[in-house]
C-alpha cells in the first residue's frame, strides 16, 4: 500500500473532496470557506472551484443560523458538513447542536436521523487568547446524541472524517489549530477509520498515557524522553471520545498498572475525568498507583506567549508525572 507524507490539513481536504465526489448530497457550509480564502485554516481551499458555491456555501457570521440550517438540511435528505471556525463559537449555536441535532432522533421516537458533521478546531499555542483557544470537547461528549472525534494525525484525520460524513449521526469533529501543519503518512488508497476504536500509538510496559489531539504528540515526545531513562511508556489515543474504546485502555492498564490521562482542556470535569472514572470502575484490580491527570489548569487561555506556554500540557509535564509515578513517589 503506497503512502505519502502529507499534512493534517491536506488529509482533511482529501477526505472532504473524496466524500463530495462520492455523494452528491454532501455539501459544505461555513464562514469564508470558498476560494480564494479557503477557510481560516485553509482546509477547504481548492474545493469551491471543483464543486461550486452551492456545495461550498459561504455563510455570514450566523453560527446559530447556519448550524441550524445544517440540522434542517440533514433532516431532509442532505449530508451537510458545517464548519465552525473556532470551537469557541460553538456557544452561539448550542441550541441547534444540543437541543435540536442531538435530540431530534430520540424525541421523534427514532423517526429522524441527522447526518450532520460539524467540523471545528480548538487549542492553544498561537497566542489567540481566551476566545479563540479553548478545548470544549467535554461539553459535547456529555450530550447524549452527539458523536465526538478528535484526530491527532493526518492518517487519523482523513480516515475519521470520511467515516463521520458517512455516518447518519451528528458528529462534532474537533481539529487542533497547531496540528494543521503537522505531517504524517497517509495511504493513497481509500480507507476509513471506524468510530470507537482507539489507537495504541506507542507500546510500552511501565505506564499508560491516554491523550487526545495535539497532546498525543506531547505524550509521544515524553515517551521518547523517558525511554532513555529506562521507563517504557504506552501511549493510547482514543481518537473518538464518544464512542470511547475503553477496552483498549483497560488492556493497556492491565499491562502497565499505571495510568496518566493528559489533555489540553482544563482539568475540572474535562474528558480525562470520564476516562479516569471508567478505568476506576473497570480496571480496579490492575492499578498499582493512583490515576493521574495532566491537564490544563482550570483557567481561560492567556494571551502572552510565555503565559500561554506555561499552561499548555507539554512533554515535560507529562514526562515529569510519569517519572514520579513509575518511581513510586505518588
Amino acid at each position, binding site marked *: 500500500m503506497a503512502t505519502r507524507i502529507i499534512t493534517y490539513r491536506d488529509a482533511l481536504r482529501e477526505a472532504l473532496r473524496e466524500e463530495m465526489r462520492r455523494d452528491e448530497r454532501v455539501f459544505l457550509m461555513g464562514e469564508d470557506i470558498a476560494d480564494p480564502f479557503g477557510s481560516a485554516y485553509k482546509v477547504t481551499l481548492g474545493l469551491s472551484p471543483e464543486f461550486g458555491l452551492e456545495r461550498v456555501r459561504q455563510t455570514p457570521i450566523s453560527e446559530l443560523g447556519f448550524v441550524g440550517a445544517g440540522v434542517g438540511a440533514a433532516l431532509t435528505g442532505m449530508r451537510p458538513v458545517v464548519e465552525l471556525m473556532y470551537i469557541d463559537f460553538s456557544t452561539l449555536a448550542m441550541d441547534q447542536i444540543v437541543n435540536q441535532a442531538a435530540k431530534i432522533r430520540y424525541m421523534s421516537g427514532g423517526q429522524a436521523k441527522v447526518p450532520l458533521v460539524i467540523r471545528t478546531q480548538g487549542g492553544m499555542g498561537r497566542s489567540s487568547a481566551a476566545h479563540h483557544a479553548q478545548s470544549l470537547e467535554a461539553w459535547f461528549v456529555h450530550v447524549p446524541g452527539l458523536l465526538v472525534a478528535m484526530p491527532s494525525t493526518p492518517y487519523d484525520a482523513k480516515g475519521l472524517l470520511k467515516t463521520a460524513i458517512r455516518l447518519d449521526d451528528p458528529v462534532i469533529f474537533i481539529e487542533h489549530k497547531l496540528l494543521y501543519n503537522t505531517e504524517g503518512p497517509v495511504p493513497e488508497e481509500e480507507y476509513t477509520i471506524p468510530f470507537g476504536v482507539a489507537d495504541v500509538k506507542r507500546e510500552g*510496559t*511501565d505506564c499508560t498515557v491516554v491523550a487526545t489531539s495535539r497532546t498525543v504528540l506531547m505524550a509521544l515526545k515524553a515517551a521518547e524522553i523517558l525511554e532513555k531513562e*529506562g521507563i517504557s511508556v504506552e501511549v493510547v489515543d482514543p481518537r473518538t471520545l464518544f464512542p470511547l474504546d475503553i477496552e483498549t485502555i483497560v488492556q493497556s492498564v492491565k499491562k502497565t*498498572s499505571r495510568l496518566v490521562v493528559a489533555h489540553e482542556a482544563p482539568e475540572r470535569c474535562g474528558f480525562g475525568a470520564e476516562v479516569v472514572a471508567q478505568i476506576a470502575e473497570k480496571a480496579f484490580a*490492575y*492499578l*498499582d*498507583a493512583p490515576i493521574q491527570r495532566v491537564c490544563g489548569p482550570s483557567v481561560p487561555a492567556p494571551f502572552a506567549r510565555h503565559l500561554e506556554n506555561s499552561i499548555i500540557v507539554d512533554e515535560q509535564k507529562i514526562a515529569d508525572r510519569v517519572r514520579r509515578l513509575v518511581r*513510586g513517589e*505518588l
Partner: protein
Amino acid sequence: MPFTIAMPQLGLTMEKGTVVRWLVAEGQPFARGQALLEVETDKAVVPVEAPAEGTLARVLVPAGQTVPVGAALAVAVAPGEHLPSGWTPPAAKEAEAPPRAQAEAPVQAPAPAAEAAQAPSGPLQATWKARALARQLGVDLRRVAGSGPGGRIQAEDVVKAAAPAPVRAEARATPTAARLAAALGLDLAGIAPSGADGRIVEADVLREAAALIRRAQAGAPAAPPGPAGVARRIPLAGVRGITSARMAESARTTARVTMFREVDASGLVSLRELFKGQGLQVSYNDILVRICAVALREHPEANARLGEGEVEVLDRVHIGLAVDTERGLLVPVIHDADRLTIPEIAARSAALIEAARAGRSRPDDLTGGTFTITNLGMLGVEGFTPVINLPECCILGVGRIVRKPVALEGDQVAVRPMLTLSLAFDHRVLDGAPAARFLGRIAELVENPLRLLAAG
C-alpha cells in the same frame, strides 16, 4: 480458647530474644511439650516448647525478629477450635493473658507484626492491585510491609510477602503457563493473571518475564562486566575451620569407595511405630545406631582405623551422629552404642543433639567415635557419597524413606517404603567384599529389625 505462646525468660539476665525458626507452621497441630520454635539469646539457641496441645493459629513474630521477653510470639487454639472472625492480635502488654475474642474494626495496623513496616495509623493503605493480589494469594495485608509513599502497600510488596506461596486454588494457571513459568524459573505466585476466570495464561508469564528483564536492564546503573565481588565473608574459624581442614584431609588421604543399597524400610517404620505406641520417642537414627552397632560387632574390620603402617581394629563401638547446627557440622558420639538398648540410645542421642545445637556439647561428646552415621533423609536426599570421618574407616549415609513400587516374589508389584543406604569406606583399610558384607548385614537388620533381638 486461644492462648499465647510468649517469648520465655531463658536466663536471669535475658531481656529479649530472637526467633530463629518456627518448627511448626500456622494451621499445624502440636502436642504438649513439642518444640514450636527456636529462639536465640546471647548464649544459645533454645527450643520453645508448647505448654499444651493445640493448633498454631497465627504466628505473630516471624523468624529473624527480636522481641522482648514476654512478647507474644504466636497464638494457638485448643484442638478443634478456630480463631474468632474479626480477632485481632493483642497489644504487646497483654501477651501473658489469653486475648479476648473481639469484633472490633478488624483493619488496624497491629503492633507486633508492624515491626518491619512503617505501619500508618488509620485505614490500611494499599493499592487496588495490591488488594486484588492479596486476595488471590491469600496474603493478610495487615502483615505486609508497604514500600510505597507513606507506607502504602504496592503489588510487589504483596508478592514478596506471599513467598513462598503455594499456588492457591484461585491463583491457578493454565498448564502451558505453569510449564513456561517453571522453565523460566518464575514463581507463579508473583504473576497477575489475565485469564477471564482469574487464571494465569502464557501471555501473563511472558509479560512478567519481559518486565523482569526490562527492570533488570533498566534498574541498576550500567556496571561494567567483571568477576563477582565478595558479598559476605565467613572466616574459617571455629567449627567451620575444623570441618574444612578435616574434610580436606579426608578427601586427600582416604581411598574412598561408596556403595549403595536400597532396602525396604517397612520393618524400620513398624519398629518405630511400636516404640511410639509405648510412648517412647525413637527416631530412625536411633534404631540405625543400634543396627550399626550390632553390625560393627559382627564385622569388626569395619570398626577400624589406619595406624602407623598398620590397621588397628578397635575394641569398642562408639557411633557418631552428624548434626547440622548453627555453628556448623558437629558429630556428637554415642559411646558403647552396642551396649545400649534402643530407648537408651534414643535418650542419649536426644541429649547429645540438643546439647550440640545449643552449643553446650562437652568435648568428650565430640570425640572418640569409631563409626559415623549421617542422615540427610529429612532434607530429601536419597543417596550420597559422604566424606569419611577420619580416623574412622566407614561412614553410613542415610537417605529419605520414599514409597516406591517394588517387585515381590512371583512378579507381583507392591508399594513399599524404600530407603537408600550409602556406605562410604576407606579402601586402604577395608576391601570391597567385606564392606559389602557389612553393608549387607546392616541392610538385613533394617529390613528385619526383629533379628536385633537375636543379636548379641
